């Protein structure tokens, strides 16, 4: 762990030396009593935040704690319903991102704001109003980008089109965009969620150079490890309120976690010893293409047994989605087979596969897994509406659907006013409970769970992981696809690593090590890692 405390000022390279010198001790950003309401939710409930010049300040909190909302207020994307923003000792009103940039505040969003078909330099100047006449001149832009790239280790080909870049490179473009606009305060919203462990290291090194050079960074995250690794100070948000601000060096993960959730988190779930049973799913030399017709799965083979959780690790976009879709009948396999017991699933329809006892918790639980405008009751019978007891002859049995909904709501603790509430009014955790309740009824033999806890709060996450472990104990085979390595290591019996559609290797979860998995996620074969 990096020692914190006073840092040497570092070489003064940037243009705003005097400004910084004059109000050196004052806070770069001060938010006072920020209130932001959305229909039915108070996202920020009187939040105070003081960020010192030249520090990396983490905003830590569960999903839904109000971190992103708070930073969107600072960046001018939202107007606060109450409270004040002070910059360099003066109150300001930030009406738009343009105004924020004028105050030298830049933001790198979790989902990048880039135009894929444009080049890096075109993306960088997009929206800038420089007096260049009717024609765009890129020579100056290119030179400035090169200089910034040299300085901060953000080298990139400024003529490359954004769609050709990896996610990590696209993130660099976002950072360069903010630096090009001479941002002094850089807000990073969950920047590591899309990166491999190695890319994360590179990002952290860059952030360090930036603060050494006088920039101020606000770093939004819900990962405790990152807070400990990167920040100088940390402010914990819980349910729209700032719980506390502490020096990172004077705290620890357990204390932060307690502040984050308001209670001690059980980091270890009860997990019975691994007792694999019969073969449930056998995948052989599976090949498939993605939506653009490019190869997404290349000769993927693995086995999954009853009572076993096989974790699939990998940076998103390396074939996980396609693997799920092929096994659940939503995508055709180009070659190879996927067999459930003795039934070949390739060539079966999604409905036939579901009827064989395959449960699917989809990645996009709202867009794919539910019908937002339909009631909880109707969403719960989305896959069983065709047969008794929910359907008699051609008529739906409302009573049966209602009884089913009452049972599911009680069993999974779905919190909703009634079973007639539209699914779109549920929180993320409750939507996932709904999806699980529907998919797991009828004791499926195979459960495909894609990112089952992504974006959920700690309470829901814990519950959903326990539900998966219960299914394992019951004897279901579970294919767990997740980008959260902690989750994979915590739940899985074995871990399979995918990179560019290839299986990089399979490890026993007990003996797996995060560094090793990280290297495999980045494309190293199992054998190479061992050497």
């Amino acid at each position, binding site marked *: 762990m990096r020692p914190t405390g006073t840092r040497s000022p570092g070489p003064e390279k940037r243009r705003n030396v005097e400004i910084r010198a004059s109000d050196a001790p004052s806070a770069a950003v001060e938010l006072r009593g920020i209130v932001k309401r959305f229909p039915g939710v108070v996202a920020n409930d009187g939040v105070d935040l003081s960020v010192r010049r030249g520090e990396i300040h983490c905003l830590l909190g569960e999903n839904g704690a109000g971190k992103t909302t708070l930073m969107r207020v600072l960046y001018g994307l939202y107007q606060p319903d109450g409270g004040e923003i002070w910059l360099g000792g003066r109150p300001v009103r930030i009406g738009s991102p343009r105004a924020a940039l004028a105050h030298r505040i830049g933001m790198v969003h979790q989902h990048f704001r880039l135009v894929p078909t444009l080049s890096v330099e075109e993306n960088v100047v997009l929206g800038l109003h420089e007096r260049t006449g009717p024609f765009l001149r890129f020579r100056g832009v290119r030179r400035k980008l090169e200089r910034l790239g040299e300085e901060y280790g953000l080298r990139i080909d400024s003529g490359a089109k954004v769609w050709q870049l990896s996610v990590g490179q696209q993130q660099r473009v976002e950072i360069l965009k903010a630096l090009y606009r001479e941002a002094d305060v850089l807000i990073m919203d969950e920047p590591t969620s899309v990166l491999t462990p190695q890319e994360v290291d590179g990002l952290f090194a860059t952030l360090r150079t930036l603060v050494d050079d006088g920039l101020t960074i606000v770093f939004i995250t819900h990962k405790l490890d990152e807070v400990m690794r990167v920040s100088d100070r940390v402010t914990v948000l819980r349910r729209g309120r700032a719980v506390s601000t502490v020096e990172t060096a004077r705290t620890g993960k357990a204390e932060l976690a307690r502040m984050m959730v308001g209670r001690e988190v059980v980091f270890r779930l009860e997990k019975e010893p691994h007792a694999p049973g019969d073969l449930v799913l056998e995948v052989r030399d599976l090949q498939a293409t993605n939506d653009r017709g490019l190869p997404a799965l290349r000769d993927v083979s693995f086995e999954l047994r009853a009572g076993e959780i096989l974790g699939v690790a990998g940076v998103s976009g390396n074939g996980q989605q396609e693997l799920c879709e092929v096994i659940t009948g939503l995508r055709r396999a180009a070659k190879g087979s996927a067999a459930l017991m003795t039934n070949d699933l390739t060539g079966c329809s999604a*409905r036939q596969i*579901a009827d064989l006892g395959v449960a699917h918790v989809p990645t996009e639980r709202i867009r794919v897994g539910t019908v937002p405008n339909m009631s909880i009751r109707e969403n719960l019978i989305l896959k069983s509406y065709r047969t008794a007891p929910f359907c008699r002859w051609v008529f739906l049995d409302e009573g049966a659907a209602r009884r089913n909904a009452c049972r599911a709501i009680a069993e999974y603790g779905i919190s909703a006013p009634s079973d007639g509430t539209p699914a779109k009014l549920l929180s993320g955790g409750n939507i996932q409970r709904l999806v699980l309740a529907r998919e797991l009824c009828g004791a499926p033999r195979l459960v495909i769970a894609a990112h089952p806890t992504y974006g959920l709060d700690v309470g829901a996450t814990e519950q959903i992981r326990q539900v998966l472990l219960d299914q394992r104990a019951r004897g279901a085979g579970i294919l767990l696809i997740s980008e959260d390595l902690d989750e994979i290591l915590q739940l899985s019996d074995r871990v399979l690593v995918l990179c560019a559609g290839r299986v990089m290797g399979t490890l026993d979860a007990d003996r797996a090590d995060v560094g090793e998995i990280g290297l495999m996620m980045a494309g190293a074969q199992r054998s190479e890692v061992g050497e």
Partner: protein
Amino acid sequence: MIGGRRLRIERRPNASGWVVFAVSVGAIIVSLIAIGVFFRGFGVSPLQAYRELLRGALGSRLGITETIRRSIPLLAIGVGLTVAFRALFWNIGAEGQLLIGAIAGTGIALYSGLPGWMLIPAMFVGGFAGGAVWGTIPAALKVRLGINDVITTLMMNYVAIYLVDWLIHGPWKGPTMRGFAYTDRFPAAAILPKLTGTRIHWPTLAIGLTAALLIYVLVRHTRMGFEIRVAGENPEAARYSGISQMKVTLLAMALSGGLAGIAGVGEVAGVHQMLLGPGQVSLGYGYTAIIVAWLARRNPLAVILTAFLFGVIMRGGDVIKVSLGLPFQLVNVFNGVILFFLIGSEVLIRYRLRLQAVEGG
């Protein structure tokens, strides 16, 4: 900003039935005011115009029965369109489906040689089938090949229009019509019975009302209806739960096109008693019914009410263009303006305005 306050737009969590009703009525009132400007431009007092319109449509027995007669095709088509719109299929080809239904009905009436008692049932069945085929062609094109439904359904209207024109000028031109481009008059057994003393061809009305009820039950309480709603609300979720988009879309469009075909049979067998020019068979019912279904917010039972409302506008419009000397395109202006405000008002169902005090600043 208004004196330290400002208007804010925010998402309405879940609009109740009353909100939807109030917004719809509000949209109609605003359209009437807007159309008032149009009346003013022709030197007619809007209040007088509306009074005339209501008197013409509802002020006499003749007025009411004529209003109902015009509501009949709107009801049948509108009910069908609610299903298509539920399945997220933008069927703006009801006009063509109506004409194909009219052609099928005419063919059976004049050339089938069926015994008299079978003619009318056979014409309705044939009309339904014709409209259904015309409706399912764009449905299949959309699901199979991803061809835009708005364009195909609209274009197929023109095919149907020219088909009617060709038939009445060519092969089906009636020898007894002294050179006019009409088919021969239907035999008496192929002409729909009317309510005494009116031009209300009640069999079509009865089919329309029954369809409204059946479609309501179908959509709300059956397996097929559940599939239509899921596919319409979230096609991704439909795919995920194994619902066939092809089956749902074909079914919805067969019903929608079929009911438009029924309306076509009603017009030729109940009103004109022959097939004549496409603009005479349908007074734009296929297009007006889109507004009817939209105003009913895709509820087939509400179509009974909205179809009647547009019957009032059509009949009343006919009356005032004569009594006040206004151009005959008047009714189209009515429809256009109402649809405009109706679609615009959707925003108010999903969002609401709130006046809020501004703190600080």
